[in-house]
């Protein structure tokens, strides 16, 4: 077959993006469009006593005003803990209370100011440890009655929305056999995805009952399904048009409030599209954030460095509504020990409600949060035992045949290889002396792993339509959120089919026309949709070869296709036994004008095999594939100012097979820099439940001037059941960045900062403390 998998095909959507002609959701204009705005709670925890919308409704240009009780249905993918707008009470500052649709943004804003809401403030809970212990004050009083997925376990009469329990072997007994036991705690604050495009949705309810949605949402089918539940509509009456997405990172997964609020408004203004675009402040405060975590590790080791027991507790600060975060807490739980083989593990992962911003899926889905502690803890242990960071990791690393914390036996594991390569590249053992005693350099390494965190039965599908001239439409409902999905998927389709990639058009996803895709999340698209595409290509080829066999007089099993030419493999140069794909695009035609068959439409579906829910001890196989890798960092710390400069970083990931190496590099570099941002700059700063830094002035993300030099390495240990051997990489690429930097800082100045981010203040305080202890 002509090889296009593994080559740097240029982005299929490049031209529209560099010319500014790509129309993102906020760019869309409709002739009778209305602007939607949301009225939000100023209190972090309060009862809604009354809402008077009469003044707003009377304003000229205001076309619709809604409140929570108009739409009482609950929405949730994993736990049903939220309604379209808050009804009886508000649970965070920014909780939507009412919404308006008006002829202009100015009128809409004036209408919000004209809505009178009476609140009765309640005491609030902003510390997850406190909230977890709390028995009287419940943030969700009806938690006992919430619908939830059967792998989610809310704890009755508490603020714990999920408790994931994992028991492998016998940790208590194994601790007795340990030569040394270490206990440590690490902390990660809430941070935000900061996509450059904020959340935005347009909804139009037509007079004939059909609903159209255009949205920045990552997953058209999930969006449609959840909207269907909330508004009690058949799915085929809802059409979600995919639109280019300006960055998602998980924040635009599932169903986010701007969509159901826009839909709700649209039902009152039939025919008029209603657009809701979040401001940047709303994006920070009211969209979705990454949960915070308090992570406690107790580890028992043998003298030689073998880790034999672990007791782990993760307490997740989930914020006011925990729909997605309950699954993050589960994923953190079943990945709790990092990429290491530990025979005895006792882990409890708690997702906790607090009166803080809503959290959810963020690139890594819990992995960044837990590896911050895992990858520093293991180095503290190593140092105490007299092992190097690399030795300690290699000794305990997952390998082929290892059993992970859920007892799954692993294969195709490339972790050790990535560690050795990264350590070599950054010259981990060599440190530079700057000659200036106040500028100290250090190097560090950290590893990570992840698999797609999906329900075991998450399904993908693909259709390959052959058109009359032999050109192809590839129909999928995966979205391109920047990662280059359309390009990589087209490459796999071209190679699996046997045509030139230039003949493949990726049809824009549209739930009326393109087939089911569970979600574009979890680094699953290349893997899952890729496998569906391979199946669709095989189906298309079977149809083509059925016609060609009859037409050319060649046995079907002797036929192949390359570059769109079907040929006889036993007689490859015989042009009488060849035909272009276009000849059979609409079936086989006969000399007398009749024909047989019809359009060649290849159909492929895929659900991963061998995965199911874990048992009550968190044991089993629930992850369809794992990706391993690491980052290494070289930093320079200014001991007078506490500033950390990251000079160089190396990223090494085993991606199985790089379908498009340049796109893979893009993920490695982008993920690394996003992790670097959380390591040094990013955190939500609060006064109680009030978010103080909801703008770029006070919440800084990396700029071009901040980034280190980055070396990327792609390792390829084929994944047996991956399409062309490929694994996901988008999320893994972010996981080890922050702990690698923390480890490099430790190497430089001998102090650990155990809470993200590593700020100059924390460095200086830690240096002072170290000096005091040394004296």
């Amino acid at each position, binding site marked *: 077959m002509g090889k296009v998998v593994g080559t*740097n095909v*240029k*982005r299929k*959507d*490049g*031209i*529209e*993006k*560099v*010319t*500014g*002609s*790509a*129309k*993102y959701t*906020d*760019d869309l*204009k409709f002739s009778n469009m209305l602007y939607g705005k949301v009225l939000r709670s100023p209190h972090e925890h309060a009862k809604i006593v009354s809402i008077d919308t009469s003044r707003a409704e009377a304003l000229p240009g205001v076309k619709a005003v809604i409140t929570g009780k108009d739409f009482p249905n609950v929405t949730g993918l994993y736990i049903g803990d939220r309604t379209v707008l808050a009804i009886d009470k508000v649970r965070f500052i920014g909780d939507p209370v009412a919404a308006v649709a008006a002829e202009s943004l100015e009128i809409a804003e004036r209408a919000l100011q004209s809505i009178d809401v009476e609140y009765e403030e309640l005491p609030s809970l902003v510390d997850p440890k406190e909230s977890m212990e709390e028995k009287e004050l419940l943030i969700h009083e009806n938690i006992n009655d919430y619908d939830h997925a059967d792998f989610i376990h809310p704890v009755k009469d508490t603020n714990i929305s999920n408790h994931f329990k994992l028991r492998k072997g016998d940790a208590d007994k194994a601790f007795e056999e340990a030569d040394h036991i270490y206990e440590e705690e690490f902390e990660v604050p809430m941070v935000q*995805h*900061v*996509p*450059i*495009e*904020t959340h935005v949705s347009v909804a139009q309810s037509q007079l004939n009952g059909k609903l159209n949605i255009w949205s920045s949402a990552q997953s058209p089918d999930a969006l449609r399904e959840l909207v269907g539940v909330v508004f009690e509509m058949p799915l085929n009456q809802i059409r979600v048009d995919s639109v*280019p*997405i*300006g*960055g*998602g*990172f998980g924040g635009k997964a599932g169903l986010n409030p701007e969509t159901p609020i826009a839909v709700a408004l649209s039902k009152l203004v039939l025919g008029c599209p209603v657009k809701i675009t979040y*401001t*940047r402040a709303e994006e920070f405060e009211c969209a979705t954030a990454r949960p915070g975590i308090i992570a406690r590790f107790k580890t028992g080791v043998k003298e030689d460095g073998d880790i034999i027991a672990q007791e782990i507790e993760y307490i997740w600060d989930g914020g006011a509504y925990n729909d997605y975060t309950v699954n993050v807490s589960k994923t953190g739980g079943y990945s709790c020990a990092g990429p290491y083989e530990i025979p005895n593990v006792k882990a409890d992962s708690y997702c906790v409600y607090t009166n803080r911003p809503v959290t959810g899926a963020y690139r890594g889905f819990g992995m960044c949060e837990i590896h911050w502690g895992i990858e520093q803890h293991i180095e503290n242990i190593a140092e105490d035992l007299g092992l190097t960071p690399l030795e300690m990791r290699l000794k305990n690393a997952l390998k082929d045949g290892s059993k992970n914390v859920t007892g799954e036996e692993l294969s195709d594991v490339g972790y050790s290889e990535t560690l050795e390569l990264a350590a070599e590249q950054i010259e981990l053992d060599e440190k530079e002396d700057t000659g200036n005693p106040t500028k100290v350099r250090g190097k560090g390494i950290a590893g990570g792993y992840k698999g797609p965190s999906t329900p075991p039965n998450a399904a993908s599908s693909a259709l390959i339509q052959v058109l009359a001239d032999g050109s192809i439409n590839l129909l999928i409902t995966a979205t391109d*959120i*920047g*990662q*280059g999905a359309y390009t990589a998927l087209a490459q796999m389709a071209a190679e699996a089919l046997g045509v030139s990639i230039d003949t493949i058009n990726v049809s824009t996803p549209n739930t009326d026309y393109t087939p089911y895709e569970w979600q574009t999340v979890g680094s699953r698209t290349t893997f899952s949709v890729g496998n569906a595409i391979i199946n669709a290509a095989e189906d298309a080829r079977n149809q083509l070869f059925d016609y060609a066999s009859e037409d050319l007089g060649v046995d079907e099993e002797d036929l192949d296709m390359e570059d769109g030419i079907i040929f006889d493999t036993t007689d490859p140069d015989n042009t009488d036994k060849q035909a272009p794909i276009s000849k059979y695009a609409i079936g086989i035609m006969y000399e007398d004008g009749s024909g047989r068959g019809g359009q060649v439409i290849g159909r492929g579906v895929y659900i991963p095999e061998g995965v199911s829910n874990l048992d009550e001890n968190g044991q089993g196989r629930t992850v369809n594939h794992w990706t391993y890798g690491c980052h290494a960092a070289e930093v320079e710390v200014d001991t007078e100012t506490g500033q950390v400069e990251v000079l160089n970083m190396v990223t090494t990931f085993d991606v199985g097979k790089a379908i498009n190496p*340049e*796109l893979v*590099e*893009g993920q490695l*570099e*982008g*993920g*690394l*820099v*996003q992790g670097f941002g959380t390591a040094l700059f990013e955190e939500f700063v609060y006064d109680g439940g009030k978010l103080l830094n909801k*703008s*770029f*002035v006070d919440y800084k*993300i*990396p*700029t*071009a*001037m901040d*980034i280190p030099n*980055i070396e990327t390495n792609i390792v390829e240990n084929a994944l047996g059941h991956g399409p062309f051997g490929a694994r996901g990489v988008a999320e893994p690429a972010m996981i080890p960045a922050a702990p690698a930097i923390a480890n490099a800082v430790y190497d430089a100045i001998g102090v650990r900062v155990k809470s993200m981010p590593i700020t100059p203040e924390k460095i200086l305080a830690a240096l002072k403390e170290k000096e005091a202890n040394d004296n």
Partner: protein
Amino acid sequence: MKQKIKFTVNGEVREYEVAPYQTLLNFIREDMDLTGAKEGCAEGECGACTVLVDGRAVNACMMFAVEADGKVIETIEGLASGSGLSVIQEIFIEYSALQCGYCTPGMIMSTEALLRRNPNPTDFEIKEAIAGNLCRCTGYTKIIEAIKAVAKKIN
């Protein structure tokens, strides 16, 4: 009360009526349907709205439309010509210097402004020129490589 203004946009002289409080960004997006420039923050911090005003890179969200009177405005839509993409646009694609594309128009306009005044920038000067253009997807590495390649090509 609307105000009359006259300015050049992507090579064409045009006359408009603008509201006094309207930003240049809002005006070009809503009234001229030039949606390439994006609103990322509306407070001059992210650069997604970068356009050229008399050859200088400006955050259009921080400028009132009335201030455009008598000026030469260039947006991303004006870069490609009848004969095809500009060099910067071609090389951005060639070097995979974009992912979601939302920061891309602003990033390209900042690059255009840089290379007009400094056709042979150092690495530092490149980073400084795009420091006001936030990108969350690429990690900037390929963007910087692309800009270096453009400089090399035009010199």
